[in-house]
């Protein structure tokens, strides 16, 4: 590098050294940040099979998926009618019951039991628990009420209870995940 370019040898070394240090810095930060993400054993948390044969209409159970609760609920015809009576377009997170269940199995409402506000487990799946004013689930932490399609109707939660990926392995067994 000639002096007449206005670029001195020192300038080049300076820029090269600082750039190399910057790249090295990023290289060090990547593993340090990434190690905090979910590890392989956590991600391998698999799928869960749930036997639903003993759940009567109007009843619900709590299953475990990825160490979090899943609500499996057998809706009564009245609850299905209540859910369908609402104009989905007016809801905070517009979805119909049909979109949240499998075709032909509209009575099986399968959702995560994790409130979309801050992650509490809503009440309503267990026997005798408060179901809130819309007859679905009620989160005691900050008062979110879900309806019989587990859609958010009142309170601070922004979204409906999440429907996990699942399929019916048979008429009585659901495979979640």
């Amino acid at each position, binding site marked *: 590098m000639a002096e007449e370019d206005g670029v001195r040898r020192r300038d080049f070394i300076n820029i090269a050294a600082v750039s190399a240090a910057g790249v090295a810095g990023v290289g060090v930060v990547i593993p340090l940040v990434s190690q905090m993400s979910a590890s392989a054993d*956590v991600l391998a948390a698999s799928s869960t099979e749930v036997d639903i044969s003993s759940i009567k209409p109007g009843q619900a159970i709590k299953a475990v998926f990825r160490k979090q609760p899943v609500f499996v609920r057998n809706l009564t015809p009245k609850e299905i009618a209540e859910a369908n009576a609402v104009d989905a377009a007016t809801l905070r997170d517009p979805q119909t019951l049909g979109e949240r269940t499998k075709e032909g199995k509209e009575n099986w409402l399968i959702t995560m039991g994790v409130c979309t506000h801050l992650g509490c487990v809503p009440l309503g799946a267990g026997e005798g628990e408060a179901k809130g004013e819309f007859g679905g689930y009620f989160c005691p932490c900050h008062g979110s009420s879900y309806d019989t399609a587990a859609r958010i109707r009142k309170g601070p939660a922004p979204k409906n209870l999440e429907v996990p990926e699942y399929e019916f392995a048979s008429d009585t067994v659901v495979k979640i995940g």
Partner: protein
Amino acid sequence: MSFPWANEYQPSHPFMKWMDEKLPLPRLVYNSVGSGYPVPRNLNYFWNFGFLALICLVIQIVTGIVMAMHYAANTAVAFDTVEMTVRDVNWGWLMRYAHANGASAFFVVIYIHIFRGFYYGSYKAPREMVWLLGVVIFLLMMATAFMGYVLPWGQMSFWGAKVITGLFSAIPFVGEPLQQWLLGGFAPDNAALNRFFSLHYLLPFVIVGVVILHIWALHIPGSSNPTGVEVKSESDTVPFYPYYIAKDGWAVGAFGFLFCMMLFFFPNALGHPDNYIPANPMSTPAHIVPEWYFWPFYAVLRAFTQDFFFIPAKLMGVLAMFGAILVWFFLPWLDKSPVRSGSYRPTYKKFFWFGLIPAMLVLFYCGGAPAAEPYVMMSQLAALYYFAHFLIILPVVSAIEKPLPLPYSITEAVLGKDEAAQLAPTAR
């Protein structure tokens, strides 16, 4: 830096002279908390709380290191190791309850320390940096206390961790991946417990570092005082040692008395019974509340139940909760009044005692109450007032208020006239 009349460190023993040349640590101590640091002579008891906060930090670090010797950060045994520390370890009960109640004591002391700053305008120039570092210390304390509360892995620990990390999921787009990154999983589990333990051990030492900066920044202009009038001459000050060492010592005695009363007679009064139930990810306690020192901010979080234009209610609540503390960073510039002390600001004083303090108390009360009416409405009104105090009332009041006449000097404020001063005998 100090006032020109500050006593100078003059070691007499040959070893201390030798030391002073090689590593002038004794000189630093002498100039920081010894006879070499002149302090306004009129400090009232509210000025003891900085020293008390330091004592609390020491209590927490000492008892915390002991607790860590008996604790195992594993979800299978964490709850049991804490209980075994209390029941089986020699003096373990003392260490555990001193650590748990020490956290509460630390927050009592720090809240008084912060509100002292609010009332007497300690945040104003030339002490803005002292204030900003103080807010940083408070945020670090909150993070440390939160992670510490998770470690016993009881029901409140678990659900507190879930709710607080759930706050981050409110952030648009990156929220959920961020929450999973923080927890190292989909819900609080072993990965989260371990990293919380690691950070809970680390952060107190970060706090020690920021405390050193806080005191360093304080010692450049020197302490503020109840009149808010700056030090003018030597008669306005007394040396830190022996005068304020003695007074702080008295305060430590009084504090120790109250602390021991809590520790020995009401060790669980400030805790929550649900945290004696081991963590259960399948069942949320009917009434999740954080520790009492987070209640005012938790109430702000819950005050937002409606979407605000395009911002979801959840995100609004989270922003407001962090905003409730972040607004303190702007305090030195929101309050434009040249008069520091609330004692000479009749209008500000009214808004302080009848506005800010009641609003904080309402938020405090509602934060511990269930998420139902009338508490939601009360938190909404109080949160609205809280923000109005800082963002509207303070700037307006500081512009239109007519302050009371200030004394000429600290000496005059204490003795009636400036010439009546007698210099404090030094303890050389």
